[in-house]
């Protein structure tokens, strides 16, 4: 994958939403194809399965599903490509990957549901960790 990405240029803007959509899928495919080598580079075999990484990528894309301006989509895709290149080039380290894509979604997003309201501080702490 690295050789494919090495020669990337900034493409001209997408002319339509259709085209932006197609580019998004192309990006997703590229990301999926680089997952095995990412697993290798960062030694992720025992922390995560390829499928989990795939759904992590998909989740990142879905996070922006409300964007409908092709220019904005292009910009986001550019940033995504940059990130992917950094990862494939080993410009990052293992804990970056683990922190962002393996525990990221679960570990960093706070559950701010209403169900804990009225609970004591103890119980709220209890649900998150043993060490308080």
């Amino acid at each position: 994958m690295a050789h494919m990405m090495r020669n990337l240029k900034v493409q001209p803007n997408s002319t339509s939403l259709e085209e932006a959509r197609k580019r998004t899928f192309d990006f997703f495919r590229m990301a999926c194809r680089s997952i095995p080598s990412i697993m290798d580079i960062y030694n992720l075999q025992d922390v995560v399965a390829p499928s989990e990484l795939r759904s992590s990528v998909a989740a990142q894309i879905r996070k922006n599903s409300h964007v409908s301006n092709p220019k904005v989509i292009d910009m986001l895709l550019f940033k995504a490509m940059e990130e992917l290149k950094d990862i494939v080039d080993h410009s990052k380290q293992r804990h970056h990957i683990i922190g962002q894509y393996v525990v990221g979604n679960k570990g960093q997003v706070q559950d701010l549901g209403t169900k804990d309201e009225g609970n004591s501080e103890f119980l709220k702490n209890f649900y998150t960790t043993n060490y308080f």
Partner: protein
Amino acid sequence: MGLGSIASRALRSNTLRPGHTNLLRRSIVTTTELRNAEAAQAQPETPPPDLPPRTPVAGARVHFPNPEDAIEVFVDGYPVKIPKGMTVLQACEIAGVDIPRFCYHSRLSIAGNCRMCLVEVEKSPKPVASCAMPALPGMKIKTDTPLAKKAREGVMEFLLMNHPLDCPICDQGGECDLQDQSMAFGSDRGRFTETKRSVVDKNLGPLVKTVMTRCIQCTRCVRFATEIAGVQDLGMLGRGSGEEIGTYVEKLMTSELSGNVIDICPVGALTSKPFAFKARNWELKGTESIDVTDAVGSNIRIDSRGPEVMRVVPRLNEDINEEWISDKTRFFYDGLKRQRLNDPMIRGPDGRFKAVSWRDALAVVAEVIHQVKADEIVGVAGKLSDAESMMALKDFLNKMGSNNVLCEGNGPNPNADLRSGYIMNTSISGLENADVFLLVGTQPRVEAAMVNARIRKTVRATQAKVGYVGPATDLNYDHEHLGTGPQTLSEIAKGSHPFSSTLMNAKNPCIIVGAGIFERDDKDAIFSVVEAIAERAKAVRPDWNGMNVLLLNAAQAAALDLGLVPESDKGIESSKFIYLMGADDVNLEKIPEDAFVVYQGHHGDRSVYRANVILPASAFSEKEGTYVNTEGCAQTTVPAVPTVGDARDDWKIVRALSEVAGVILPYDSLSAIRSRMKTVAPNLVNVDEREPATFSYSLKPESQQKISTTPFKAAVENFYMTDPITRASKVMAQCSALLSKK
């Protein structure tokens, strides 16, 4: 012996050395004054400059049994007062001089065969082995003279002659006496160029790894096995350079204390087999904690690396375990890594467990507990529960309206009112003052190995007599097997048994009742017979309390202190909701089909098969908990490693559940729950102090029970597997396959 003190002494003496003449000459002996010891000695003695006050080595204290017997000796010109009969080495220790040694060990007999402890004594023609030489009044001992140093260098050279150079692959490396002392006292080169001898390794079983080529024939292990462990398995074979340590016949070492030879072996000849090549000792973090595998509460140090417990070693506590621990304590730690529960789980309709969040698990339990009647709720605390969690469980179930909280092993109707009725009143170290023992239905060797070692020590030192009532067993000291059942006790109480006169004539009789009796229906009757015996033998007096109960599990004493007593003895059979807090030895058959079982614990052991909800808890190595040992001494564990997965501390789980169930418990922190414990049982917060019981038997109501004729049963079937952690341990499984007596 601390390397620091040795090294600093070596350095100090180096600065005295005038060695400038032979800097470039590569001679064998490097110090000039050593080559000419006599001449150096003949130099006029300069009066010692004012001596700095010295502190005894390792806080050694002198106890003068008889003030007239004090004698004065001079160590390096420094006068010390010591009691008569001490050795020169001990005198030096009190004077603050650490003498290098290999074979001498303060708890073993003196062998005097390594010669490392040579010192100079004025008017003696040769250096003397200080460990074997009694100190005489006015003796002038010199530990720092060229002659003494030369002698040590020579001994070191001989020892290293046949010692392999495998420190880089040796598990003892870094905590090896030979390594330390050769750095401090050895010469920097040897003169022996012949090949080293090699010795065949011996198979001592699954616990002790041997590399016999490394052995320096100090015979500490042999003396330990015969004197302390009481097995005649190890011995010295051959003579001269053919001398070897081994078992006389091809045989495993079958002692419950065998692991201690690893600690006392000064070199890497005997090392721990499960720990072999796992870690280096300098990368380990030590945490001072308490053992929970039996009721003795041995003091241990848990050595961990990252999140993993790497090994367990003993800590010195003269009142409890001296410096030994049993094999179970030392080697069961691999069970902490296997079969652990790490997520809350609920059993689905298909009978399989599904991992859920804490929120969901607690909600389910809280919902169910409100649907059953208050008197159908039962709580059972397990063998390894700490006092905090038992307090929380009892408070929680009481708030739910149930008073059925019991602790495993305490039997259907324990006596929790009189503290003297369930602890060891004599105290473990007090056993040494007893002169006659009567063991009732207890096999201390498997129930509490350290208590057994104390009894053995007493029997060896004072020829105390031991009478034993119970199933045939193998005690490693002389004993008289009096009978197997309670009738023998009645005979002793009536005075018609020959042993009763021995008991009557004893100065300090000591009666030890096993906690296995708690499970018997005629428990009260047996206790009143035993009390009658104690009465006749005058075992309970103001100055001596010889009436003891030897408990089996770490949780028992604290549970009784906190009053974990079931309301009715049919609790479990008629229950609809059972809360098992680490309880894996309850009879699962007794639990009704339709009961809802919550299992809170750290291992997927027996009870998990019956549980409807699993709440993962932390093990003793991961939490701070109070445990009371069989003599009533409260001690706390300290977390050494982080908890596994999503587990929580036991008391926190109960506290959280109480909130979800709407009966919130009023404590949020460890200190808050401890102050709650203090109101129930103040002795539980007096950590590290033995709290003797105040009342004695005379206050107890008469029992109306009849003793049955059923003989006593063994309380512990398999020494190596008694609780969820040891049952999960591979090493313990190997031990019970190879070593348990069939």
